[in-house]
């Protein structure tokens, strides 16, 4: 007999905080922490880069989980939305290069423009999400998989045919204004949004759609509307992730946003457990560090350089096999639809009982 998660378990500030402040408190707490983090990491570019990549992956996984996990639809074209965000944000930043707001210090003015670019990227991705989602989300789930995959291809073709996006060469020279602080502010926002949706009637409607669409519709849930909206929110954050990505890598080209990238995100979500935000975060961290770890391991072992290079190659078929193995052995992933704080205490209790 298991006790189900109650929707009200969003662990946040207790009763001491006035109701009016409850909504903004996490943001107020997060900002100085992120500032500190950025300051601490100012001298180590490798750590900054790795943490940024990890942060972008977390945003992608958590946002995809809103559609694939919470709503039970299966999108496999998340990289397409990421590409839209990356290209449009990058484009905006390139246009605004050299422009500064006179009454602000230069660094701050840069960040204002960066935010603007991110917003443009996120909103365009959200619009694409709407346009793609509307026809396909009215149909049965598996169509969505194909349509999203196709959407990724369309994006690639469009980019390769557009001069403004540098065709196959990509965009370079985008100002490198991103930092760990900004990336993790994005992470923080997407997690906050996902958890707060989960704790609201909207989240319950999404779960209801995942569990039984016909019943949800009969209980007054506008299933199409909710599916489209969850898709739009998810695409928005994919766009933000893309925008962030574009501002810390030297160059973005269509090769960064292929089907492989989409699959990587899908694997993260499935591994973490469809429907579990914390699962998605952990899986994203694990799957970002694993190839890096293997690469440095091989390099430090003095293996011939080719082996370290092969890590990247081997990664992809391994993802595929991992998916198959997961489905056959543990289809619910790491945490299933639950969060870490629902799962760990029980696991801990069982472990204790086992040892005593």
């Amino acid at each position, binding site marked *: 007999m298991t006790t*189900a998660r109650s929707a009200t378990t969003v662990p946040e500030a207790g009763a001491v905080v006035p109701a*009016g402040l409850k*909504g903004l408190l996490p943001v107020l707490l997060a900002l100085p922490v992120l500032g500190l983090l950025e300051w601490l990491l100012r001298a180590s570019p490798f750590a900054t880069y790795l943490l940024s990549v990890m942060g972008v992956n977390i945003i992608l996984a958590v946002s995809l989980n809103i559609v694939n996990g919470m709503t039970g639809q299966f999108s496999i074209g998340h990289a397409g939305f990421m590409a839209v965000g990356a290209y449009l944000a990058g484009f905006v930043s390139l246009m605004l290069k050299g422009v500064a707001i006179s009454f602000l210090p230069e660094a701050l003015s840069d960040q204002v423009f960066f935010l603007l670019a991110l917003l443009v990227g996120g909103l365009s991705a959200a619009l694409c999400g709407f346009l793609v989602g509307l026809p396909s989300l009215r149909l049965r789930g598996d169509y969505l998989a194909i349509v999203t995959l196709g959407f990724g291809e369309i994006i690639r073709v469009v980019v390769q045919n557009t001069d403004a996006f540098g065709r196959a060469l990509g965009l370079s020279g985008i100002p490198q204004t991103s930092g760990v602080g900004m990336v993790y502010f994005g992470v923080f926002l997407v997690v906050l949004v996902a958890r707060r949706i989960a704790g609201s009637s909207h989240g319950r409607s999404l779960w*209801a759609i995942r569990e039984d669409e016909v019943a949800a519709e*009969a209980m*007054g849930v506008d299933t199409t*509307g909710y599916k489209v*909206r969850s898709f739009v929110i998810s695409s928005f954050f994919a766009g933000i992730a893309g925008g962030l990505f574009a501002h810390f890598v030297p160059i973005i080209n269509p090769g960064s946003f292929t089907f492989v990238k989409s699959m990587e995100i899908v694997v993260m979500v499935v591994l973490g457990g469809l429907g579990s935000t914390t699962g998605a975060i952990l899986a994203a961290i694990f799957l970002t560090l694993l190839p890096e770890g293997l690469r440095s391991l091989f390099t430090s072992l003095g293996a011939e350089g080719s082996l370290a290079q092969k890590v990247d190659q081997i990664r992809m078929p391994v993802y595929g096999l991992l998916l198959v193995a997961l489905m056959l052995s543990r289809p619910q992933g790491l945490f299933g639809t639950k969060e870490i704080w629902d799962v760990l205490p029980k696991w801990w209790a069982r472990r204790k009982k086992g040892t005593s």
Partner: protein
Amino acid sequence: MSAPVQVTPEAPMLEAAGVSIQFGGLKALTDFNLTIRQGDLQGLIGPNGAGKSTAFNALTGVYRPTRGDVRVAGQRVNGWMPHRINHLGLARTFQNIRLFRALSVLDNVKVACRAETLSHQEHWLPASLFIAALRGVGGVGGEKGARGGQRLGEQLIEQAGALVLQGWWRSLFLTPGFQAEEQRITERADALLEVMGLSHRRNEEARNLPYGEQRRLEIARALGTQPKVLLLDEPAAGMNTREKADLMVLIRKLRDQFSLGVLVIEHDMKLVMGICERITVLDHGEMIARGAPDEVRNDRKVIEAYLGDSYLESHGGAA
């Protein structure tokens, strides 16, 4: 959005007029008529495959009537999506239980309780003004059927309006109003669980409940949408005699407590005859009888449908 129609207790809450459903060449339902008012407790019976569930699906918007009209609270709802029909006050249960299996018992009911919240927002003045303004900009006028016919622009406007205004932002910012509302929803759901005798299961996953309790949870969930008419599809299936007896009492109690009109599909004759004031009998998609339990029980056509002609021949006619 549909303006709530003022209804007097005598006005029909649910009305089917000449409803027919055809799948390809198969006539699943022919010329079905039904009227349910507040306080009614009616039954719908018939042999297997008689079209009872098809009738339910036609009334609740799962199927679109090939001919005829369905009216809920005075509104013609042909071709509406089920959720919009539900918002007008029509709720149902399912023959093959369709709970949100992995959600807790409480959350199952809370999903349904959401409708109240939504209707508040729909009548929130700035929201409707904003949507109206967007409609004006988009040059889209008039209400169209929600299924299919809507144009892309209109969809975009509705979705944008819904995303911004239907309280998503309130849940993101945890506004005091939102917190109070969540509180209210939980209280209302708890109250419904209490009524249905499920409070002790509150935090369990719905799929772990025994069969009888799952049936009751389906009713609790349907009540969460604050219906005016409740359609129960074989609520006693799989229950033992004792549970059935309890259910009969419960259905009557619900009707009175929530001022409902109730329509029950049931195979158990004792239950239907025991509680329904009026019974409609379907066979091969056609209505063959209607009336008080005693009239229906002695109707020749009904006996024929259930027991076959041979029974009548060998027993020399009805009763």
